[in-house]
């Protein structure tokens, strides 16, 4: 390898920054609360997302208790059940997963992995978090208003979403939901601008786009997707708010409610569906692409092998991102659309399976002949591949119109989307936390508790969602408070529902062990080595662990290779960090080479 000293160009900041120019917090408040340090903001995002995620988890328990033991919990009324369904869905998709992957992992990892001191606009980044927090609080406020939160389903379809018959439809519930979503989008846009510009402009010397770890590629592409897709939700949220509050008829058709003709007329509910799913389908990949990127890095690091087909992996991420904008109407096959339209969207849906399958093959081939360490991050990464394949295959079923129509609105769909965009990304979140926890705290998470957490979560998720596919096949509908003695549903469905509920409760409690592990290990965990997984990427090459503000001390690192130099023939160690100068690489043949 030949070293060429990088030349300075105008739009790139200096590698060396005088101490006086580094931003330092001046008080406890600016260091830990109104912090502009992306790492602190990441932790704030993470804690808020997990906190609201726990609310979502409890809501899912309540739903499961009703479904598993329908006669036993009289306090769960049909209205409450619908509110639980709605809030659980929205919380998990938007306020937990999106916020955690982009706001949490994005903030922590982007500056560190690309070799930057921080995000390019730290103040805007800080605002992004606080607006997100306000969005979460507005959402939570809807639990306490008259009529409670909206029970319109997470898709918020009009006209029912803003009618009196729907829980929270005529009161503040739906309005607060829409305001919260709008705030979330405004906050995300501020953060998203930071992520994109930092990745494009804030990289250190030698860090070309094709030397970036796939984690960054996943987060980058997901951010671009989100910046382009969230406007659809924003526009529809504004229009529905106006329909609800001012009585406009963007989406509301002429309608009779409880025998009374409402003043609405002529609106198009299907227009809302198009706008919603133009956001909604890319949203799947906004969650999945960061997971794809992170899992690629976990597999490579813990199998001590370079990622198989790096270029193809990048292209697949970009390709999936682009294709995700032309598949949205596969969520609307039963909306009465033109059959040719359905044919088009079924075709694009099947096409998107190609780059996705390519990624699965490459993950598997990365493991092939690797020096696999079954660490906890690795276990979660492998579990992700299996789960994503399972969820993806049922997606092929539902992508076909003729199969989707009878299965639509059944528990089969619930099982599918939970496997593919619930369980699979959450497994990556767990793997990532186990992997980067030593960097964030300087301590290791407890291994025994971690393995317990993994096995209960992984096996438990299958006990929950595999039987749910069967329930869907026999026709058990989704969003129903009770199916009572519906003639075509066998009695065994009730037993299966009870079984699923017990499994869900157990899996839920395993998460308590995980949180306990995090709290205890943060303060009393085993001290971590500087680079415990022997990773090559820049976040592990900082001066101090956990990294301080400014990340890399006085001088930024210079990058000499990609992030996957594992088990390189001829080198003494089985990994070569990205910032090690070629002359400093230890070779087998030359022990004196330092």
């Amino acid at each position, binding site marked *: 390898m030949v070293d060429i000293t990088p030349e300075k160009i105008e*739009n790139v900041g200096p590698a060396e920054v005088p101490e006086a120019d580094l931003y330092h917090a001046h008080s406890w408040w600016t260091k830990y609360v109104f912090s502009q340090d992306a790492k602190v903001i990441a932790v704030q995002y993470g804690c808020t997302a997990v906190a609201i995620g726990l609310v979502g988890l409890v809501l899912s328990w309540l739903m499961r208790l009703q479904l598993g033991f329908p006669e036993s919990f009289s306090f769960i009324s049909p209205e409450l059940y619908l509110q639980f369904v709605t809030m659980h869905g929205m919380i998990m998709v938007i306020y937990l997963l999106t916020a955690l992957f982009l706001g949490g992992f994005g903030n922590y990892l982007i500056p560190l992995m690309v070799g930057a001191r921080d995000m390019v606009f730290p103040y805007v980044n800080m605002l992004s978090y606080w607006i997100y927090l306000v969005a979460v609080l507005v959402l939570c406020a809807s639990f306490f208003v008259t009529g409670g939160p909206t029970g319109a389903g997470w898709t918020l379809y009009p006209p029912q979403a803003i009618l009196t018959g729907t829980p929270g439809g005529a009161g503040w519930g739906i309005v607060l939901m829409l305001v919260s979503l709008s705030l979330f989008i405004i906050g995300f846009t501020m953060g998203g601008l930071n992520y994109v510009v930092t990745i494009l402009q804030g990289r250190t010397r*030698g860090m070309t786009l*094709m*030397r970036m770890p796939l984690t960054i590629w996943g987060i980058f592409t997901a951010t671009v997707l989100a910046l382009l897709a969230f406007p*659809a939700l924003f526009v529809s949220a504004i229009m529905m708010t106006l329909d609800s509050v001012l009585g406009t008829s*963007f989406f509301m058709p002429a309608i009779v409610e409880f025998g009374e003709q409402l003043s609405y007329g002529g*609106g198009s509910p299907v227009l809302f569906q198009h706008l919603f799913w133009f956001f909604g389908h890319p949203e799947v990949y906004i969650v999945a692409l960061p997971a794809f990127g992170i899992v690629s890095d976990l597999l490579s690091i813990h199998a001590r092998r370079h990622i198989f087909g790096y270029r193809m992996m990048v292209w697949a991420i970009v390709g999936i991102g682009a294709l995700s904008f032309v598949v949205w109407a596969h969520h609307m096959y039963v909306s009465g659309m033109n059959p040719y339209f359905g044919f088009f969207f079924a075709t694009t849906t099947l096409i998107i399976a190609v780059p996705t399958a390519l990624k699965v093959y490459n993950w598997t081939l990365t493991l092939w002949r690797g020096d696999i360490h079954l660490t906890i991050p690795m276990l979660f990464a492998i579990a992700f591949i299996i789960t994503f394949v399972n969820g993806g295959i049922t997606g092929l079923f539902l992508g076909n119109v003729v199969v989707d129509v009878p299965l639509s609105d059944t528990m089969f769909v619930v099982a599918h989307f939970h496997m593919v965009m619930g369980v699979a990304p959450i497994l990556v979140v767990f793997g990532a936390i186990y992997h980067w926890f030593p960097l964030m705290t300087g301590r290791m998470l407890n291994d025994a508790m971690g393995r317990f957490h993994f096995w209960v979560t992984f096996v438990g998720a299958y006990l929950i969602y595999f039987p749910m596919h069967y329930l869907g096949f026999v026709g058990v509908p989704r969003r129903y408070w009770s199916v009572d003695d519906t003639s075509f549903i066998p009695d065994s469905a009730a037993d299966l529902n009870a079984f699923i509920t017990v499994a869900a409760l157990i899996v839920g409690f395993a998460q308590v062990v995980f949180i306990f592990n995090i709290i205890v290990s943060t303060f009393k965990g085993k001290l971590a080595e500087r680079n415990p997984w022997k990773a090559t990427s820049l976040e592990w090459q900082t001066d101090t662990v956990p990294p301080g503000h400014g990340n890399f001390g006085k001088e930024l690192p210079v990058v000499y290779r990609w992030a996957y130099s594992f088990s390189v023939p001829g080198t003494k160690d089985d990994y070569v960090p990205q910032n090690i100068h070629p002359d400093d690489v230890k070779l087998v043949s030359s022990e004196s080479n330092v």
Partner: protein
Amino acid sequence: MEFFSDIRVKPWLEAQVEIDNAHSGGSIALPKEKLALRVFVGVVGVVFSLSVVAYSDRMILADWNPVPEPLIMWINLAVLLASSVAMQWAVVNSHRDKMANVEVGLLVGGAFALAFLAGQLLVVRQLDALGYFAPTNPALAFLYMLSALHAIHLIGGLYVWGRTVLRIWRGYEARKVYFSVELCAFYWHFLLALWLVLFVWFVIT
């Protein structure tokens, strides 16, 4: 940025390593603020594009009742155009390092923008006086919603404009002022282009 050629390289090849080691880091020859503004403008563009798509989808339904464009809307268009021209004049003068002219251009541009906002309020009042105010009329609802969205973005621009004016008054370094003026002017031109598209759309529908 040649994105698609950048992602075709093979970072593990020896020849590529030499090229990559010489890479300075950034991908686009733009200051971060300019790039961020372009990305933001792109996002805003998507918001309005989708709104126009929704508009055209909604207008084919039976209850669509077109709204006439009062004269004041044409005047407003001219005012916004004048605002943009003034901003551009400020940019031209910043290139010639004529701070006094830059200040005039900036102030005139901002004043015209404020006049535009006031004019938009007059449009609402005039339509109301003509008896067109009915929330169930989708044409009117779209006109109000899109005008309000556009106005909110202009108000956001005026916030940055205000900061730039303050920078001049506080005697900031000319280079920094000129940079802010350029950003303001770019955003003004974008909002003008956006309003032109919306206005033409209102007129032809």
